[in-house]
Each structure stands twice: as C-alpha cells, then as structure tokens.
C-alpha cells in the first residue's frame, strides 16, 4: 500500500510539472488567426477615402492590363489588319490572331476575355461598394468615382465586342454579343448568364457614358476619365453604330467650329504642335484624352508591350511584326515610304535587316511608353468622317488638313484625293491609318463597316461572313457558363 501512495505522489507531481506543457504552448490566443502582411481584408477596402480612391485607380489598372488595353488589345486590332507581317511565327505573340486561326482555346482569346471582365468586375464592385458604404467618401466624390467606373465599364464592353461580336452594322445589333454583367461578383454564384445582343450592349455603353459625362470632373490629368473623355469615346461608339449625326453632335461638344480645333470646356484638348510630343515626354499633354500610364513598377508585362512587338532590336524591341510593304499596306503610302516625304510620321519608321518596323513606341524594357487610348487626333478624324457622311465636306476637309498639316505643313491633298465625298472618305480613312498606326484602330475601322480583311503575307483574306471574322467566346466561358 505504501508503494501505491508513492506512485500517486509521483503522478501528481509529474502531472503538475507537465501540465503547463500541455496548455497552449504559444500562449497566444491568436495563434490560429493569421492574416497576410501584404494584402488587406475586404472589410478594410472602404475604410478610408484614400483606399476608395485607390480602388478607382485599380479599375483603370484593369483596363491597363497588358492582356487588354495596356498593349495586346491594340496589337490584336492592328495585326488583324493589313499593315503588318508576322516576323517570328510565335504562337504566343499573336501569330494565330494575325492569320485568323484562333479557336476558343487560343491564349489571346482566353486571356483578353478574362482581362476585360476583370476590369468590368472591378468597376461593378466599386459602384456597388460606394452604395453600400455611403459615408466612405463625400457625396460628390462618390458621384465622380461612380462616373469613372461607368466610363471604364463602357470602354471595356465597347472594346470587348469589337473582337467577340459581330459588327453592329451587320444586322443592326441583332447578333449575340457577350454576357452583360452590371453587378459586382464576389462569390461562386451567378456563373450562368446568357449573351446579350450587340444592340443591348451598345445601349448600356451609351447609358453609362451619358451618365458618366454628367458626373465626371471637367478637368483631370488624362490618365483618368474626365468629361471630354466620355464625349470623345461616344464619337467612337456612334461611329461603330453608323450613327454619324450623333458623332457630329458629340464631337461638337469638344471640337471648335473652325481651326485651330480645340475643346472649349474641360481639359483644353487640342493637337500637339508636333506629333513626336505625343509619344515622348509627358504623354499627358493637350492631345491626350485618355492615356494609360506605365512605369518600371507598373509595366505592361512580358510579351504584352507595344514597343516589344513593333520596335527594332536596336530600339529595344523584339521585331515581332514588320510593315507589310505590299500596295495595300499603309507603309506603301508615300507619306511613310516616299523618298521625298517630309511627313513627321515617317520618323516612326525604323529599319532592321531590310525589314521596316514601327518605332512609335520607344521605351526599351520594361517598356514604359504610356499607351494612348483616346487622343484628340482620333476625335478630329471621327468627326471628319461623320461630317462627310452627313454632308459637311468643307469642315471634313479642314479637319483632315489639321491632322495632316501638323505632321507635314506643306502638304496639299490633290483634287483626286478630296474632290468627291467618296474619295474624301477614302483619304480620311487613309489618314486615320497613318495617324493612328499601331494604336489599335485598323481592325475596328474594317469591321465596323463590315468590310473584308485583305490578305497579307501568308495570312489569308477573310470575308465578313467567315466565322474567323470575329473571335469565338473564350473556352473558359464555354466550360463554365451554361447559359451562353
């Protein structure tokens, strides 16, 4: 019995010694509550006005993704056209877009779709969040931020349907376009949503832009939306719908009746004296209506950069695409390739091993050229075209000359180029190709009129009736959205 008691003592003493070790050794109540040190909980995203504004910037950042308007969108829109020849046969840098061989799995089809909708969801989340957190910023700021989000959403939808939907003019917008998402998505719900029609998407775009126009600030550094930006974008949207009268109406809000053409209100938008100023220096001068800023720490990303695709090796580029020197390519225009051309835009042509390259975008790795999305020259040319189509040849010619003479002051268009509305339209179109080369307009200007894509190099011509004329819906959407 004595033995037993000793045992008991030992157990008691032993247990007392050991017990603390069995208690929570770390003594920290939050041992299992660990949050990341580099990211914020969602609950904190509307906690300060600075964070709300920071979220506004992230919507623009969504647009700025290298997979979208930060580079690849513009590249796809240009290489579908006849201006460029693929140099490297690299499937990762647009080969199948260039030769109209994409399918729903092709990386450009999948990635751009996703990038555009990421931007759209950020806009939707911001709009919803401002309603849900009414005191996070002042009422005025809330209105402005909502307007900016709507502007960005409209821009994203507009660019999206230029690639993934039939042109409006093909059937007045009756074709299926893309799912129209207007609510912020956070959860696993709502995977299924049918495609809205092209017309429905345009209606929403115009609604967003009209609402944005009312609430956007009159002036802003053009890396963010301002009133003139919404108006300028509307000229592009109405052009796509063939609503030329509305193009004129909208453009008149920001283009004076006569040269020198200038916006009377808001940002004092006008053409820069030299086109070179647009692509060097501040990037946010008077001509920039919306430009996406790039810095070393906020760059477009690998194989997304305009300069990487187009510039010569000596300029830091990878020479992915060179000019199509055939007669139908814009390079054959004397303004670019004429030996005697005095056109300043000829300065954007570089040469490497007998091939000609676009050197408009110049910054070497990590390629920090700001990416122009809307600039005043486009508005003038949109207005010029609409003016011809609505009967105002005189103003159209003046607008055309404004763009041409900025780069070649001595140039005089021949009568053959301008005498009839039909020839004038062609000249304006050519001027747009010259002026906005590499800025992502060529495919848009072909498809909005339902025109065929001309053949170039080893790439075939594509009729507007061909399935290849537009991109298929992304495979990820096909796989997960059962209501398509």
């Amino acid at each position, binding site marked *: 019995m004595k033995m037993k008691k000793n045992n008991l003592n*030992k157990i008691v003493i*032993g247990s007392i010694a050991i017990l603390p*070790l069995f208690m929570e050794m*770390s003594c920290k109540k939050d041992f*299992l509550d*660990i949050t*990341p*040190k580099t*990211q*914020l*909980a*969602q609950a904190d*995203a509307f906690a300060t006005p*600075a964070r709300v504004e*920071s979220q506004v*910037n*992230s919507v623009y*950042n969504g647009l700025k993704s290298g997979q979208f308007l930060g580079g690849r969108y513009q590249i796809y829109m240009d290489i579908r056209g006849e201006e460029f020849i693929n140099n*490297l*046969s690299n*499937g990762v840098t647009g080969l*199948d877009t260039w030769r*109209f*061989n994409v*399918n*729903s*799995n092709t990386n450009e089809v999948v990635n751009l*779709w*996703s990038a555009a*909708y990421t931007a*759209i*969801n*950020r806009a939707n989340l911001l709009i919803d969040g401002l309603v849900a957190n009414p005191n996070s910023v002042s009422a005025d700021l809330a209105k402005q931020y909502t307007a900016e989000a709507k502007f960005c959403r409209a821009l994203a939808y507009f660019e999206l349907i230029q690639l993934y939907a039939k042109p409006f003019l093909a059937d007045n917008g009756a074709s299926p376009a893309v*799912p129209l998402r207007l609510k912020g*998505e956070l*959860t*696993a719900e*709502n995977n299924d949503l049918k495609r809205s029609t092209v017309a429905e998407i345009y209606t929403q775009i115009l609604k967003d832009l009209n609402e944005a126009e009312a609430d956007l600030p009159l002036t802003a550094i053009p890396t963010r939306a301002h009133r003139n930006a919404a108006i300028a974008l509307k000229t592009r949207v109405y052009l796509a719908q063939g609503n030329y009268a509305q193009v004129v109406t909208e453009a008149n809000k920001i283009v004076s009746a006569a040269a020198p053409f200038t916006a009377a209100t808001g940002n004092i938008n006008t053409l820069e004296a030299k086109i070179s100023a647009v692509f060097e220096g501040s990037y946010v001068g008077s001509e920039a209506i919306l430009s996406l*800023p790039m*810095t*070393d*720490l*906020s760059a477009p990303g690998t194989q997304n950069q305009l300069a990487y695709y187009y510039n010569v*090796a000596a300029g*830091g580029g*990878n*020479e992915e695409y060179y000019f199509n020197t055939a007669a139908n390519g814009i390079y054959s225009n004397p303004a670019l390739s004429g030996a005697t051309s005095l056109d300043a835009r000829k300065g954007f042509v570089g040469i490497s091993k007998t091939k000609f390259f676009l050197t408009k975008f110049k910054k*070497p*790795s990590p390629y920090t050229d700001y990416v122009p999305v809307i600039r005043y020259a486009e508005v003038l040319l949109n207005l010029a075209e609409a003016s011809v189509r609505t009967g105002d040849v005189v103003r159209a010619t003046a607008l055309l000359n404004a763009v041409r003479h900025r780069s070649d002051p001595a140039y005089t268009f021949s009568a053959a180029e301008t005498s009839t509305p039909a020839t004038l339209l062609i000249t304006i179109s050519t001027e747009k190709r010259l002026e906005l080369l590499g800025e992502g307009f060529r495919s848009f200007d072909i498809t909005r009129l339902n025109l065929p894509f001309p053949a170039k190099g080893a790439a*075939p011509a*594509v*009729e507007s009736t061909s*399935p*290849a004329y537009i991109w*298929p819906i*992304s*495979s*990820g959407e096909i*796989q*997960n959205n059962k209501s398509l």
Partner: protein
Amino acid sequence: MKRILQSLMLFMSILLSQAFAQERVITGTVTDQADGTPLPGVSVVIKGTKTGTQTNADGKFSITLPRGQESLTFSYIGYTAQTVAVKGSILNVELGGDAKQLGEVIVTGYGTQSRRDVTGSVASVSGEKLRNQPVQSFEQALQGKATGVSVIQPNGVLNNPPVFRVRGFNSISLGSYPLIVVDGLPVFTGDQSQTNAPSNPLGDINPEDIQSIDILKDAASTAIYGSRAANGVVVITTKKGTQGKVKVNYDGWVGISNTQRLPELLNAEQYVTLKNEARTNAGQSQAFALQKLDDGSTLNTDWYDFAYRTGVSQNHNLNFAGASSSTSYYISVGYTDQQGIIRKNDYKRMIGRANLDHNITDKIKVGTNFNFSNSFNQAPSTGSLPGQAFNTGGLGRLAIVLPPNVAAYNADGSYNVSGSAIGYGANSSAVAPSYPNAAVLVNEDKFTSENNNLIATLYGQYEILKGLTFKTNYGLNNLNVESIGFNNRINGDGYASNGISTNGTVKSKRWDWFNTLSYNGTIGKDHSINAYVGYEEQHTSVDGWGAQRSNVIDPFIDVFQGSYGTIVPANLVQGENSFRSFFTNLNYDYKKRYFISGSFRRDGLSALAEGNKYGNFGGASAGWAISEENFFKNSGISKLVSMLKIRGSFGKVGNAGLSDFAALYLYNPGLYGTSAALAFNQAGNPNLKWETSKKYDGGLTIGFLDGRINFDADYYRNNIDGLILNSPQSPSKGIPNNSIAANIGSMYNQGFEFSVNSTNIRKGSFTWSSTLSFSTNKNRVTALANNNADLFGPSGLETANITRVGYSLGSIFTVPTAGVDPATGERIFINRNGDKVRFSFARPTASRWLYLEGANAGAVAPAIDATLDGKITGNAIPTWYGGFDNNFRYKAFDMNLGITFSGGNKVYYGTLAGLRDQRFWNNEVGMLDRWTTPGQVTDIPKVVYGDNTSNGSALPESQNVFSGDFLKLRNIAFGYSFPKSLLPAKGLSSVRVYAQATNLVIITKYPGPDPEVSVNGNATASGNSGNLAPSVDRNATPSGRVFTFGLNVGF
C-alpha cells in the same frame, strides 16, 4: 512491487543454478551472412530467459548455458534474429537479412509498435535499399519498393521532385505529396526554387543516413496525423549508434549517365526536302536550302549535342557509429557531385548529421538529431518544370525544334543569331526561326538554386513510473533557398531586355513542438496496452524577396551585382500558418491474438475560415492473429503456415495542403502608374472547411515456412469528400484567377495491394531472395463544383486533360482523329456530332474544314474546337504498378536485380505534335512517310507549310495518345565482398566493390523517350494542381540512365 519480486526470484534462481546445476560454456563467433565480417554487439540470450551477453568487438561471445537449456537466440538491429539449438561447445552463427521482417519495430507517428502487432497498413523500406543509389533524394529510390507507393520521376532534370503518391491521387486542388516526417518533424517538401534549377528539400536528407522508412497508408495508421494524413505519411527514422565496437563506414561511387530513346530527327537534307515540299503544297515559294561550309561539306547540325551530354558523377559518404552503455551516437558526412544528362545541369551537396542519445539516469533520456545540408543545383532553362512546357527557351524543346540546316556558330566562331532568335542560315528570311540558339542559352545563361537546410530535433523523456513516460520533442526546419537567374543579352528571353538578372531568396522556417504522455505495459499476463495522449503546435513562415535587373550597362556583366539600367522587385513571397493539435492513441491486444487500436486527433489550422478552423479526425482498427490460436497451432497447417493474421481499419483524416490565406477575401494594393491602386485580388470563402478522406482497409498477412515466405494482401478504399476545389468561375464574372476555393466535389480511390517477400533459394552459399509488390488503383471523380462542371488541366498553352464526373482524375482529353484521308492526304477529325471532317491548311481560312463524307461531303464544316469536340481518350493515372526486387548472393558475390512496372494509363505525347509541326520546326523521321500521292495509305498527312493543326499543335489530338504501360530494368548491380583474408590493410573489416546500372532498359510500346513522365509534376505553384494534368509528355527533357561503380568499406 510484483515486478521487483519477480526480478528477485529470477536473480536467485540464477544464483542457484550457478551453484548447483550442471552447466556448459558455449563460445563462438557471429558473422554477417553477407560478407563474413564479425558482428560486434549482437545480443546472445538463452532462449526463454533474460540471461544473455553480447558479442565483443571481434564478434565473439561466451555464455554459460544451464542444464536443460538447449537454444540460444541471436538478435541484432538490422538483422533477422535467429534461435539456434546448441550442439557441442562451439557455435558459429551467421546473421542475415536486412531488418524488415515480421517482428521488427516500426515507427508509427509518435510511438513505435512491433510489426506483428500492427493492425493498420504500413509499408516499410529499410535504409539498406536506398544505399548506393544514384539519386538526389531518397524518394526517387522508392519506385517499386513498396505496395501502394507510386513514384513518378517527371523528367531528367536533377533534383526535380518526383510525383510521389500513396494509394493514388488523393486530392484535386490541394497538395498531394505525402506528409514527410523525419525523426518526428514534418519537413518541407516540393520544389522550393524560384528559377530553372529545381530544389527538392528532401534532397537535403542523405539517403545513406536513413535507417528505415515506414509508409503509413490506411486511416488507422495515419489518423494520428489527423488533418495531414490524407496523402499518407512517410515516417523516416535516421540511424543510431549501437553498442559494441565503433563502426566506421565509407561508401562511395562514381558514375556516368547518358540519354536514351531520344526521338530520331530529320537531318539537314531531309529537312530541306520536306519543308520545301510543304512550301510547295501551301502554294508558296521554296524557302529552305542547305548551307555549304567553307570546306565544301554540307552543314548538318545535331542539336541534341548542344542539349545533352554524358554526365559524370561521384558520391562519398563516411559515417561513425557506436554506443556506450549510456550514450549512443551516429555521425556522418556526405558529399555528392552529380552531372545530369542535360548540359549545365549539376547537383552538388555537402551534408552532415549527428544523432546523439544519452541516458542521464535510468529514467531520464535526452537526444538530438541534427542535420545540416548545403545543396546546389544548376540547370539551364529546360522547359521541363511545371508550367514551362511551351517556353521557347526550353532546352528540351530547342533540341528538337531547331532546324538542322542552320549552325550554332558562324564560321568566325561567333554565335549564329538574328535578333532574339537563331540566324536563318541559307534559308529565306520568310521562314526565319523564332527560337533562340541553344548554344547561346546553354553557354551564356545561368540558373542556380542553393539550399541551406537545417533539420534538427531535440527531445527529452522522463519515465515517471514504470511504463509511463513523458516526452517532449522540439523540431526545427530552417530552409534558406537562394535562386539566381541570368538571361543573356545575346539571344533568347534576355535579348529584348538586354540581359536580365533575377535573384531571390526564400526563408522557410518551421518549428514544431509536441509533448506526449505514454503508457506501455501489460495488465495481468495477457493484456498489453500501449497508449498516449499528446499536444502539438506547429508554426511555419515563408518570406521571400528578390529583384529583377535588366539592361546590362556593359556586356561583360552577368551577375546581379553588376550595373543595370532598371530594377524591379521580383520573387516576393509572404506566408504563414500554424497548427494546434490534440491527439491520443490506444493499442491493445489480448494474448497477442486479438488486437484493437484507435486514435483521435483534433487539429486547428490558421488557413481555414473563422469557425471552421478545427476538425476532428480519427481511426480504428482491429486484427486477429489466427496463427496464435491453439486450434491453429494444433492443426497440421501450422507447419506450413507459421503466421496468419487478418486485420481491418477505417477512419477519417484530412488534407491541410491548402494555401495559407485560402478562406479570406483579399484586396491587394498595387500601382497604377505612380498612384495607389487597391484591387480585388482573391475571392474568399467563409465556409471553407477541412477536406476529409474516409479510408477503409482490409488486409491479410500470411507467413509460410517459418517466415521464409511472407505474403501480404490489402484492399483499400478512400472516399474523399468536401474536396477543396479551386472551383472555376465563368471568366465573365471577373473573379480573380477565375476561381474560388470551395469544398465541392468528391472522389474515391480503391485498389488491391499484394506483396510477397521470400527467400526463394537458400542452398549452401547461394541465396536468392526477392520482393514482389503489385498494386492497383482505381480513381473516380464522383462530384465537382458548379453542377459537376468539368475541370480542365492545362499544360502551359495547351489543355489535354479533363476532370469529369464518372472518370479518373485528369483524364486525357483530345479531339478524336481517324487517320489520314487516302484521297486528299488530309487529317480526318471527328466532330462532336460524330461527323468526319477533313482539314487542309492549304485552303482559305473559311474553307479549311470540310465534311469528308455523307450528304455534306465537300461542304464547309464548322472548325473543330478543342473543348467542344474533345473527348476523353483514356485515364492518365496508372491503374497498376509495382516492382520485383531480387537479391542473389553466392559466397562473396552478390547481385541485385530490380524491375519496376506500371501501366493501365494513357500518356499524351504532346511532343510528337511539335515533332510533326509544319512551321520551320524540325521533324521526327516518321514524317518521311507523309502522304504524297492520292490513294496512299499513311497516318502522316500531306505536309503544308505553316500547318500546326493537322498533327496537333493547335489542338490536342487523339493520334498522339499512347499506352503508358512499361517495364523497366530499374536497377542491376553486381558486387563482390573481399574475404577478410584478402583485405589489403589492417583495420579494414569489410570491403565490397560493385558495378550498377540504373534505368538500363525500358520495355514499352510508347514511342517517346520514357512513358514515366509528367511535365506538370506536382505543379501546385502556379495555382493549378499537377493532379489535373498527369501523364503529359510535352517538350520535356527525358530521363537518362546511369552506370555506377562503387566501393563500400567498413573499418
């Protein structure tokens, strides 16, 4: 009290016997059956008593045998115990076998158990099996060594972590690597490198230091690890010193490795002919031409020479082991320097270990296991790591894609380059390659990773009462990985940036502290109890940072510290998680006949959502040793069947392999130009909870002829519920990464496992023993997210795997094809409606796809879509696998013959699509059979320049899917042990020399280099689990074979 009395009685009886009994003195020597060396420290005990002695340094013993006692039992760690009847006064005994026999001790988590008492399913591999193997990490040598254990070497890159699975793939999105526990500490696994040179931290454990590996497979044995047990638990015990003479061992080998079964490629002439024919067929001008060299010969470049080589390797280990009555020690140092078959792929490791155990008093014991390793790996960009399959700079791809009619070097010795790509030589610039020059990349790029890995444990234990022990164990794993990358400015990925240098370092730290209170004892005579309770905490943090500098200021610069134009941050990592656990375990048996055991564990994990952090796990098992029953012992069958035991188990365990912050909704601050930009970055899930597996196991162990043949059979089934899926979202929702982690989905694995351990022949000096293991696995997905929506498994730019309800995980998914139309030479595809459609790249875009037959023959058909027209072509996970390991010994000669086999699965040979691509890419010689004339029957379509569809680059196609069945002569070794009399120097106790070949022969119908392949590996890094895309062979560098010559010396 009772015990003391017993001991007293025993003591007295010994005294009495000393005094009165007639006794004999027996002397003898105990030697190693293998090489005849004396074994010191062997325990020699009189059978049925506790009386005994040990052999001395020369293996000699002397013992007094009382009258009436006729047998002595000899036992020694690492050898099979023998009981020998005494005849005469001299008894020489040879001990043989290498540990893993019934009766040995196995390590089951926080305790140990005798093998014969185990009622769960545990496979054990002795360290001896890992010795002398030319591997970087121990698990590479486990192929075919144990049932239920599948180890797939993904490709030929050194120290690339293998796909290591226990009883199938047990998760979809989460980590599926087994939990690796080294001397009580769960260590880091998976590729830790941030560059092209992979770093498997398990390479930082010297295989030569491993005493045994116990692989816990079923719920009963794994449940003690609760939430981390779903993928099985691999318990590694390192060596300890044993009493007796100090043992010093040296093991060393040198080896060479080379390639095998590389696809045969077109030579320059064949290439030019074929590609020009393709140009003509596309309506284009001839653009390819042979290049003449200055000496008039024709240039013909074999790009394999620039990618592969014969590697030379060496490995040295030295260890010291010994023990006094109170202290034991094992100290080892190792050095390995291995060259891969890929140029510039070198692995070096310096490693040291000290294991010490010391009894402070009878009741207090302390010890430590301390391992430090410095390992260094260098590799070029091989394109063989997860996510890299389509890298243009991948050497595996460059070697097959580069034209044979262009040179690596110009006549003046400079590199042949044109911009970022190789120069086009005599070809037209219209067909200039877009791929870089392999010679530049191999020579000028540099990618290394270096680990400094500390794995250390410290324990103390106190025996409070007889059988009741308290143990505290603290473990530390500090892993620093430095990754260095340089992309040269001349050619390839660094060209456009004028040179890129990327350095990063990751510090991974883990501490683990557990305390257990255990009881081990017998109640009465027949009730054995082994039980413990414990508490454990574990904390892991990972912090990494680095930067990328580009645009070298002067061309000579090739290190990060040089001067560059720009710098941006890179390789930033921040993670942290912690576990808190309570656990208990009970093993009970009655008369060693009836066994039950159970364990329970409650785990909390920081990564799960508030309110769901804790989970309860547990398992139970029971066994019946029929052979211990009297009716069995008395029956005639017991002469043949010496051991018969049946067992069964079930339980519930979890998978903790989810990312640290998976449950949280997160916003990430970024930059828009220079302004702050806070973006939605992760859709969280407040309902995220444990992914659990319910495991069932039934098994049978039979020993024949006194253990000469042992047969094990198991049936297992593992139902995994609440699978955490990165549930794919419609991209139009704009959810970051288009996925949300959720507990949706379920799956099961089931199969049989058989193993036979036998000594087939033991006749005189000749023995042949073998181990045959055979396992089957059936995997079926039974539910998925989003109304059972399919999951797709990408391999870089291509998706050739699908996970669909009713099928095996990651099944091969391709567009069905039906050969080549003899009339037109066009590839025939079968679309979603079952219509045959032919394709020609030579036609205009709108009419490339035409109906082959039927009413619409010749009419334009909709283009084939990989997703909509794709079909499941077969399961990608092997359904059977195993090994047959043989050891032969004749006198001083020994031979090992190891065979492994695997099959029942399909492999997508995506590389073949590239090998037949009709861009400028070089092709394999099979292309020479292309269709050229109407009526010709062939499976190679007409060549059309630019065509990447007919042979499978644009779409994964079924003709590139092949059976993955194979049989490999994994290992063959011949050894000779010098007889002691011939040993050249004093002090040597044993010398063995051997020659060995690894991966010598592959028998398979697979046309690629090796059907044991997985370009996606474990691939959890990119957010996509490699489990979604197994058995894909896409542009990877294959595995080679290794010949080694080695020496084992005992001092």
